[in-house]
């Protein structure tokens, strides 16, 4: 498959900052894949993220969305239509006074016909369990409810690339699982590309690929099993591994599984 997003030796500094925040990023994201991005606080994940739909432009180097250069202003609308974003703080993305208008905002801007918007909005709100709140004021919702509304907004857009910056930070365990299951399904069944930034190691288990950032560079890149089995590297980076991996590691067993059942099977096998 073709890469749908491509970073080509991207360097970036914020205008007033003297420090380089992205230090030569090369990254190709395959269309239809599920990529998770990990990294310590301040490692540059959100900065990288904002390069994917031209909110930020490289100081040097290039970012491509398909064959569109994100620095090409004529392509801005097409780029934003291709890559849908959920930002780290849902409060900053509330644009309307009623939940359903908020969710309808992006598809309206993309020129989706109004009957279809209605359908998409209802479906998206149901998908995140917020349909009964459709007439509420978004700023008067609980923390987790705001986050769900923000996710509904991008689902209603139906973009080719679903880019999510810590979308589950405020969700309860089941809400978190539902969101991860939903994006995984959209990826597997609808061929959507998913880029997920997270601090929750369990959320990465089902990804095709895990990218670890550290101080503006990529320091690990591979399947979740490959990356998580490097327990020392993860610890050095201030990160963690799933409990299953940790137990296998401490028992000196092969780290070839991450879900509790398979991990239990490995341990049971080693005992007998």
């Amino acid at each position, binding site marked *: 498959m073709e890469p749908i997003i491509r970073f080509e030796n991207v360097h970036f500094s914020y205008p007033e900052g003297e420090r380089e925040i992205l230090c030569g990023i090369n990254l190709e994201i395959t269309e239809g894949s599920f990529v998770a991005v990990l990294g310590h606080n301040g490692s540059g994940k959100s900065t990288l993220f904002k390069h994917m739909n031209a909110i930020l432009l490289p100081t040097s180097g290039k970012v491509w969305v398909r064959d569109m250069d994100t620095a090409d202003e004529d392509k801005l609308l097409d780029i934003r239509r291709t890559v849908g974003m959920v930002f780290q703080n849902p409060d900053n993305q509330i644009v309307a006074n009623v939940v359903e208008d908020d969710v309808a905002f992006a598809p309206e801007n993309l020129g989706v016909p109004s009957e279809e918007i209605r359908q998409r909005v209802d479906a998206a709100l149901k998908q995140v369990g917020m349909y009964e709140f459709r007439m509420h004021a978004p700023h008067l919702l609980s923390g987790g409810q705001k986050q*769900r509304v923000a996710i509904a907004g991008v689902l209603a857009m139906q973009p080719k690339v679903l880019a999510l910056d810590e979308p589950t930070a405020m969700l309860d365990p*089941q809400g978190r699982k539902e969101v991860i299951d939903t994006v995984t399904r959209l990826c597997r069944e609808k061929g959507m590309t998913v880029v997920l930034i997270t601090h929750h190691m369990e959320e990465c288990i089902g990804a095709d690929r895990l990218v670890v950032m550290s101080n503006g560079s990529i320091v690990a890149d591979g399947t979740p099993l490959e990356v998580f089995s490097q327990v020392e590297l993860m610890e050095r980076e201030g990160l963690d591994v799933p409990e299953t991996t940790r137990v296998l590691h401490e028992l000196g067993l092969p780290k070839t599984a991450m879900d509790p059942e398979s991990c239990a099977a490995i341990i049971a096998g080693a*005992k007998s």
Partner: protein
Amino acid sequence: MSDLRVEALTHVYSAGTPFEKTAIQDISLQIPSGQFVGLLGHTGSGKSTFIQHLNALLKPTSGKVLVDGEDINQDKKTRRAVKNKVGLVFQYPEYQLFEETVFADIAFGPKNMGLGKEEIEQRVREAAHFVGVEEELFQRSPLELSGGQKRRVAIAGVIAMRPGILILDEPTAGLDPAGCRQILDNICTYRRESGATVIIVSHNMDDAARLTERLIVFNHGTVAMDGSPEQVFSRPEELIKIGLSVPQATSLAMALREKGIPLQGSIYTHAQLMAALKEVGVC
């Protein structure tokens, strides 16, 4: 240092409108001085509403909040005084960061308490160290920080006040794992050394299990469970039914038992799991 009592607390939002919402209903509980409490509950269960009553940010629709036996809503003076006693870190750090620089933000609380310049500076340094914020960020605008850095600064601002009751609303959301561990460990140390009461709202079952001595579980605005982590996590089906889960170590222990490994005792932390595995000869 300070004990807390809540009597028949109810809060109704937007009363008399079509969006009227009883966010918490008839909650009564007591938190003795020095206790470490975890507050769990599904999205929208009323956790943030509840804790905002504990420092008089929200006024009860009915019921009372007493700190050291005194009704905190009895008059303006007590409502104001309680803010220095009960430190609250908000769920979204953005609500708390409004000064020009990181330093000024952390200094805001101590300044309001009327402390001297030197004392303020020292407290800001200590608090920044507590949360792992480098001094090179002191002159930066809080708006120019990463999400996790903002969270750390917001926590530091409350720590700098050294409150007798420390309440944190999802303090680890957005923190990297090492940052989580560091800050939670420092909170434990702070509590031990100062005798402060600590209440943490969390969606992280592993942290809740590892740190707290009591868990209060909310469900639709009422208290569904109240007990030790051991008691609460021994009821996994109920927890799952109300939107929660069990710690990862507990899930793995359950899977191991199903595979016929006879692990003993209740297991909800990594250390317990490793000890139990050792006992049955897996190690």
